[in-house]
């Protein structure tokens, strides 16, 4: 039935669709914009960071509803309408960003899945937000093929200080709600990349997205897919709004793993193929290549069309820019490739100085009962830095607030001193078994050139039998801590300013302070895990013991013991007759073999013969005894 309908519809609509194309193109220019950007930054230690950013911006207002989209995926527009979402961040990441050697990433992400969203609408209550939050996560679990449907109230919190809205509302401001959750166990693979690419206007058909091939994305050291949506409304006019969708893919390649002798690399080497063009829907399509710092040692072929020097907070970065639309303008355009040629010979590579602030996290203590979560934040800057730390401890780990300590040490010392730092901000929401996670936020000033160690003691819970996952011995995760700070300098700082939406908006975007967020490592704890095969073993063992005990006891308890005279009837026919006759005549029971033996002795035969006979007799007796026993056993 469907097929017939499809056919009919196809027949009816195909000419119409052709007619509409031109009008659409006109609309793109006025209403919706799409930009694609790629940033390539060589990092220290033969690593290359490639960052893709696809931005769809829809300036709407006349539309009564958000269902008529052109470049923006409809599903994104729909969730804004249905779930009162104003801002949404989703990250799917594999690997760990190494701050100390790689600097700061353009977009922050934690391992596994992370999402947070802002809701705002009149008539929203905490409960309705909880409900909408779960349904929102469910929607994205379908869209991105991730297990985001595991997000519920038992692993979500409402951060108080660390996340601030990045959206704009018009006129009367209604109450704003935020929800945050992480799923550190989540694996990121092609099945996430495929639907992520399908959200793009050109899909994976053309443009920079063609470079994202699964085989070359997943052999990286770090890969992170991101989706960020926010709405920006004119504060005076509620009918003048922008929906901004930013899709990011942040990859770090290890050149050593690309199996080549030198440090040369190219787009083709990194992504498996050159660029075949730009997305026809895109307003701009650009590649930025960092030329200074680690990028200084490379020569570029072809050379960039222009170079841009960006000064941010007293720190300058030089970018080479390739405009792909210009590149493919003329006739005879073919595959476009950029090659980075490293210096010949083993040149000394300059080491990167660590960024102003970085953090690590680990578990202290031993055993499966108690432990301590330790987070170490280091400030290498010459001024004190304000730090806010957020911990989300799942319900199966019980944290004790009174054990919270912030000890500090100067950077050059190895051991922490006993003096404690005072916190100026504390928000603590205790967890509840199986219901709520523990939520902790602390803010303090971190002195110049020093480290702070934040520790909190925890108990590990013994779960119920069915609460253990199928691979219980893998361990349970505690999501990463989020640390935010404000940097006075722009060294290693690459994030986009919030007012902008393109990578080029970060050029020369000097501010008085730079908002920084970091993610630490996620932790894995081995909760007390029972031996799941134990019941089976117990059953087997118990059954064996019972069976072994039961047999003899049963036989002892039920068998009737009858004493029967031993027969000494000889086998020999002649002897049998003699035997019978003797028994008949004597009329007394033939007693035992001993009698016969005595008889034999009396007969006075040779001693050897005697012995042989003796043996034979014994054997005979034994066999007969056995038969007798058997009879008894069958009774």
């Amino acid at each position: 039935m469907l097929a017939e309908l499809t056919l009919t519809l196809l027949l009816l609509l195909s000419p119409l669709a052709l007619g509409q194309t031109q009008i659409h193109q006109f609309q793109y220019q006025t209403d919706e914009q799409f930009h694609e950007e790629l940033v390539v930054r060589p990092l220290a230690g033969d690593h290359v960071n490639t960052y893709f950013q696809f931005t769809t911006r829809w300036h709407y207002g006349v539309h009564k509803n958000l269902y008529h989209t052109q470049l923006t995926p409809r599903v994104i527009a729909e969730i804004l309408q249905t779930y009162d979402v104003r801002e949404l961040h989703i990250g799917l990441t594999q690997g760990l960003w190494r701050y100390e050697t790689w600097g700061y990433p353009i977009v922050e992400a934690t391992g596994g899945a992370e999402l947070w969203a802002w809701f705002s609408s009149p008539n929203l209550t905490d409960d309705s937000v909880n409900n909408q939050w779960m349904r929102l996560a469910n929607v994205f679990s379908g869209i991105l093929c991730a297990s985001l449907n595991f997000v519920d109230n038992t692993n979500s919190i409402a951060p108080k200080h660390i996340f601030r809205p990045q959206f704009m509302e018009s006129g009367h401001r209604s109450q704003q709600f935020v929800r945050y959750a992480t799923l550190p166990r989540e694996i990121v693979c092609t099945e996430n990349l495929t639907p992520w690419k399908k959200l793009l206007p050109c899909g994976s058909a053309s443009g920079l997205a063609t470079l994202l091939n699964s085989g070359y994305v997943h052999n990286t050291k770090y890969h992170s897919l991101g989706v960020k949506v926010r709405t920006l409304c004119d504060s005076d006019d509620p009918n003048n709004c922008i929906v901004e969708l930013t899709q990011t893919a942040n990859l770090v390649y290890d050149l050593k793993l690309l199996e080549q002798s030198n440090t040369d690399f190219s787009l083709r080497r990194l992504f498996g193929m050159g660029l075949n063009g730009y997305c026809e829907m895109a307003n701009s399509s650009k590649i930025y290549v960092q030329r200074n710092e680690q990028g200084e040692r490379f020569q570029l072929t072809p050379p960039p069309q222009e170079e841009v020097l960006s000064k941010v907070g007293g720190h300058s970065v030089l970018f080479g820019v390739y405009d792909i639309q210009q590149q493919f303008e003329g006739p005879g355009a073919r595959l476009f490739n950029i090659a980075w040629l490293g210096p010949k010979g083993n040149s000394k590579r300059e080491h990167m100085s660590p960024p102003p602030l970085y953090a690590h996290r680990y578990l202290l203590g031993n055993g499966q009962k108690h432990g301590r979560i330790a987070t170490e934040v280091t400030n290498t800057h010459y001024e004190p830095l304000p730090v806010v730390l957020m911990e989300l401890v799942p319900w199966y780990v019980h944290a004790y607030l009174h054990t919270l300590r912030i000890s500090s040490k100067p950077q050059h010392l190895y051991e922490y001193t006993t003096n404690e730092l005072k916190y100026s901000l504390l928000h603590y929401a205790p967890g509840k078994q199986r219901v709520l996670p523990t939520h902790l936020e602390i803010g303090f000033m971190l002195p110049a050139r020093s480290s702070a160690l934040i520790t909190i003691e925890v108990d590990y819970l013994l779960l119920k039998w069915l609460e253990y996952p199928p691979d219980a011995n893998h361990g349970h995760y505690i999501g990463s801590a989020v640390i935010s700070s404000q940097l006075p300098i722009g060294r290693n700082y690459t994030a986009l300013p919030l007012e902008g939406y393109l990578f080029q908006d970060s050029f020369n975007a000097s501010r008085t302070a730079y908002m920084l967020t970091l993610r630490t490592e996620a932790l894995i704890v081995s909760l007390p895990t029972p031996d799941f095969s134990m019941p089976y073993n117990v059953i087997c063992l118990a059954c064996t013991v019972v069976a072994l005990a039961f047999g003899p006891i049963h036989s002892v308890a039920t068998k009737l013991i009858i004493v029967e005279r031993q027969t000494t009837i000889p086998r020999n026919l002649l002897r049998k007759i003699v035997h019978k006759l003797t028994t008949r005549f004597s009329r007394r029971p033939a007693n035992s073999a001993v009698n016969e033996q005595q008889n034999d002795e009396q007969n006075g035969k040779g001693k050897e013969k005697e012995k042989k006979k003796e043996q034979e007799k014994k054997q005979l007796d034994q066999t007969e005894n056995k038969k007798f026993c058997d009879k008894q056993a069958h009774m």
Partner: protein
Amino acid sequence: MLFKALLLVLAIIQISAEEYDTAILPEAYIDAAERSTHTNNWAVLVDASRFWFNYRHVANVLSIYRSVKRLGIPDSQIILMIADDMACNARNPRPGQVYNNANQHINVYGDDVEVDYRGYEVTVENFVRLLTGRTQNGTARSKKLLSDAGSNVLIYLTGHGGDGFLKFQDSEEITSQELADGIQQMWEKKRYNELFFMVDTCQAASLYEKFISPNVLAVASSLVGEDSLSHHVDPSIGVYMIDRYTYYALEFLEKVQPFSKRTIGEFLQVCPKRVCISTVGVRKDLYRRDPMKVPIIDFFGAIRPTRVSTGRINVTLANEEDFTDVAHIQPKKQFKIVVQPQFIAKINK
């Protein structure tokens, strides 16, 4: 059937109403439409085992996924359940790739794959909920089996099984009775037209023994009391690549093209005992058609005959205002974007 015929007639009338000489539908199309008993295709493909050493089960399920996708069932109508990640597993030396063969003939994972249920989501509860359409409130659309009375449904299961059960993730089981009840409920709720049940596991035939629902054709890789065996090991990854039955099934399906004349009957014979070692079990008593006359595309594909018209057809749209000319759309007023401070100032004291 009646409704379908009516629609067909409507379609013909609608098209012949235009002043066209090409308005008559092609003969082959009417033929195909009349012969088929179904209107849409769905596939539920389940790998029930976790852990790296069960690589072969993931390769199994991806082989069938690859085939049904290649033959035209869209991702929105394939429910793929994979209990563990093999492609991006740290033990996989070829990230993002799963092969059916040590010589890396076919990357069954491919570059375009959508897994609907994965990891811990693959549970007996979710599987039964999926079949019977009783998914929890708020479940994403791609995680639902939205089939109807005109759907041909392919169910493929693989994992570790025994007499009368199939293990899920090494921690729970689905019994043959639960499966039969689930399928009976599907029938009662008119969730399928015909159902092809395929299972590759040890003692697989025990899983379809309890079926009582009509229009079900079932095939199992081994009879009760038999083990299903794996095909070969890849020394570079250290585990078995794929199971025998599915290996030969994929070999057969790779040769099938859309509009192919191959039948389900031929497919039932893909793995004779000499190559499979186990005996392939088939249950036909619930199925009313002759499998030798049923095209394999009825279950493994969803290609419908379509014809492209190049002529112009004038139609009136229901919502004309949606397609009004855009001349009056003026560029919006630009406004300054001011975002509130992102860091709380309290600490700076």
